[in-house]
């Protein structure tokens, strides 16, 4: 187990290094600079270079890359070009809060409702419950979340005045964005849970369990659900990452000061250090989550061995 984890961690570092390198050079191919180019346009070439030099942007690309990596090794993501005078580390930690809150809530809500719907649908196979669940699942996948969000905002926020239209001021502000984000989770989880449960329910050991006279709850939770969870955990990893790291559209619609909109803004204004910082943060979060998911397999299904030490 230890050996497995350390090999994985080494792989993660290599992966991150490759991502950082690729992003760095691709990003530098973007036209423009982090400054107001329209105002700099009339400066002579020398004067413009001099201006770039103040920010270390006149160095050859490889030198800039070297300097960046050196800083990165110490965990320093550098200083933002657009949010002048502020460290990228600071900006990310300021912005991740709201996004993470929304993401966590959306995943928990989506997982709970999705599982319930999926299990009911499987147990009442081909009933009205089943069809309703599948309808929800299809709608959830096919309706873009910004349409759903705009509808929620218009009706719940504006017409009925139950929850705030937008802004990030109290806990109520997080409810509508959470619901908007959880729609897709509900849909995906419900469909997976249903299909997996259907398959598991056909297995011989389910018949055994029933024959032993176990209660339905015990059958569902102890025997069926646990075995159906493997594929769900697999898709839950990427879903969690994408939700926890923020959604541009939902954040913009509800005026949430999160990290999703920061990422897009930073690309728009060529804020090199922020682009790099968020990319590395996202990637690190993603690969670490995948590691956790793999470790969870072993917990859920003891038949899955991560390392051969026990053989």
């Amino acid at each position, binding site marked *: 187990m230890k050996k497995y984890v350390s090999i994985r961690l080494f792989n993660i570092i290599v992966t991150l290094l490759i991502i950082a390198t690729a992003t760095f050079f691709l990003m530098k191919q*973007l*036209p*423009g*600079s982090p*400054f*107001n*180019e*329209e*105002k*700099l*346009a*009339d400066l002579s070439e020398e004067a413009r270079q001099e*201006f770039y030099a103040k920010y270390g942007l006149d160095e050859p690309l490889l030198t800039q890359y070297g300097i960046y990596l050196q800083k990165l090794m110490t965990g320093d993501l550098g200083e933002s070009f*657009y*949010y*002048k*005078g*502020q460290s990228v580390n600071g900006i990310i930690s*300021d*912005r*991740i*809060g*709201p996004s*993470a*809150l929304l993401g*966590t*809530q959306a995943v*928990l809500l989506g997982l709970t409702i999705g599982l319930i719907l999926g299990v009911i649908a499987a147990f009442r196979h081909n009933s009205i419950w089943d069809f309703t669940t599948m309808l929800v699942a299809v709608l959830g996948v096919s309706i873009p979340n910004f349409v759903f969000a*705009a509808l929620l*905002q*218009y009706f719940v*926020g*504006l017409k009925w*005045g*139950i*929850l*705030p*239209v*937008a*802004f*990030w*001021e*109290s*806990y*109520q*502000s997080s409810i509508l964005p959470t619901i908007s984000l959880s729609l897709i989770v509900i849909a995906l989880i419900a469909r997976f849970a249903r299909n997996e449960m259907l398959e598991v329910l056909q297995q011989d050991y389910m018949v055994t369990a029933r024959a032993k006279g176990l209660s339905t709850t015990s059958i569902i939770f102890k025997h069926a659900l646990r075995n159906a969870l493997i594929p769900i955990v697999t898709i839950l990893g990427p879903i969690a990452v994408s939700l926890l790291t923020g959604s541009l559209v939902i954040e*913009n*619609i*509800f*005026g949430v*000061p*999160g990290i999703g*909109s*920061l990422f897009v*803004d930073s690309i728009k204004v*060529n804020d090199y250090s922020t682009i790099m910082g968020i990319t590395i943060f996202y990637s690190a979060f993603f690969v670490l989550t995948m590691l956790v998911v793999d470790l969870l397999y072993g*917990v859920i299904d*003891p038949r899955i061995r991560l390392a051969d030490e026990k053989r």
Partner: protein
Amino acid sequence: MNKRFVKSLTLLLVLGLFLTGCNFSGNSSEKTEGNATDASSEKSGDKTISLSVENDIPDLNQVTTTDSISFSILNNVMEGLYRLDKDNKPEPAMAKDVDISEDKLTYTFTLRDGIKWSNGDPVTAEDFKYSWLRAMHPDTAGAYYNILSDYIKGAAAFADGTGKAEDVAIEVKDDKTLVVELEKPTPYFLGLTAFVTYFPLNKKFVEEQGDNFGLAKDAILYNGPYVLTDYDQAKGVTFEKNKEYWDNDNVDVEKIDLKVIKEQGTALNLYEAGELDRVNLASSDVNEYKDSPEFGTNVNFRSYYIQFNLGNESINNDNIRKALQLAYDPKVLEEVILNNGSEAAYGLIAPGMTGPNDQSFREAQGPVIKPDAAKAKELWEKGVEELGKAPELELLTADDSVSKDTGTFLQSEYKKNLGIEISLVTKPYSGRLQAMRDDKFQMVVSAWGADYNDPMTYMNLWVTPERAFRGHYASDKYDALVNGARDEADETKRMEMFMEAERVMLEEDAILGPLYYQGMAYLQKENVKNLVFHPYGASWDYKYATVE
């Protein structure tokens, strides 16, 4: 062991939920239900205005910041020697009055009595000198340093690192007297002293704050009508009346909330819910609200035009360019395509910009380009004859929807009126600028926003040395007019030179095809009055705002 693992994981998640939940602003006890009548009546009681901006507030360091949102905020919490009034004319602010020498080169400002920073310290002439030198010093300057160094004597050398601070002609006679000498007579200099880069700074405070200056509400010392009581880059700012401000009695509104709302649709919903007092409209919403008493439009000093590249063989023909310039009517663009408060342009200088004898420049000059499809067709055929073949044309635009629509409009007008097919190339905003600099365009939809209220802010751009970015334009006649205006002390003559220069570049040399002056349509609650919009520099002034 497995169960324990799952349990601790759950615990961790729940803990994370609580930890991340603490990022709401402090006023969570305030009610947030959006009930239209409630919210507005509550507001009129304590004189509060709620507004929104469509982007983050990147930084409030007056020296380094370059974005219009930060400029607007600073304009309301700080004040220069002069401040722009409701009609965009400079009026005395920190300065009581000014004495301008006969040759219009020496300005002697006398500061007002009783002007204070928000910590109670007096604002002195030294604060201006310190701030201006800091804004120009190569180590501390930002992108706007030349709005100082282009005018003040000895400042250009100081700004590029070759001159000394002592040689910059800013002299502190005493605490109340500031003497500034200019390179050239500059009739709009008082207007410049109202701009952000000209605001004073308190040396002691700035040095105390160090790198932290301008990053938090307590890391700025205010001398304007309002102070910030809340500042979050991603959420917005809260203004409250500045008790130490000299003209405190004439500031009516107690509190202004300025929230970051990036989505136009959301802003409109918030306006409808009574949570915003003003909102900009997308052009698709204009028709729906056009007849509302809350509807209005503003026009910026920002002109859009087709820039022709004389460095390109096919375009370097007068008749071809004139044909392309006359073959479309900007009025159609304004009414059918833009429909957002923008105004059709028949010249370069935006309407409302200062001109001769108390007239605006545009009023005095009138339209320079008069669209004429028949004449355009004639010129085109002549041009084709001269070139020997019909040129293949390509129009570059930025990839935002307004620019793309403008491109499509031109494409169809050219097809209709000249019978030609032009191709469109779209690039992201900075890609377009890059292509222009690299000389990789024939014609491009481009724009310029005024830095100050004088035609020079536009005219200066096309003076030699010729650059690809400005279409390789080089004209001795044009240069002589603009450079002549630079040295001219007589205001009427100076404006005449600019008017002639605009005529030369547009009518004679046809290097640009005017398109429109950028405007915006908005809705504003009827009980909110006098939110002053300036068409250039820092856009917003809340000092004069009132709530009924």
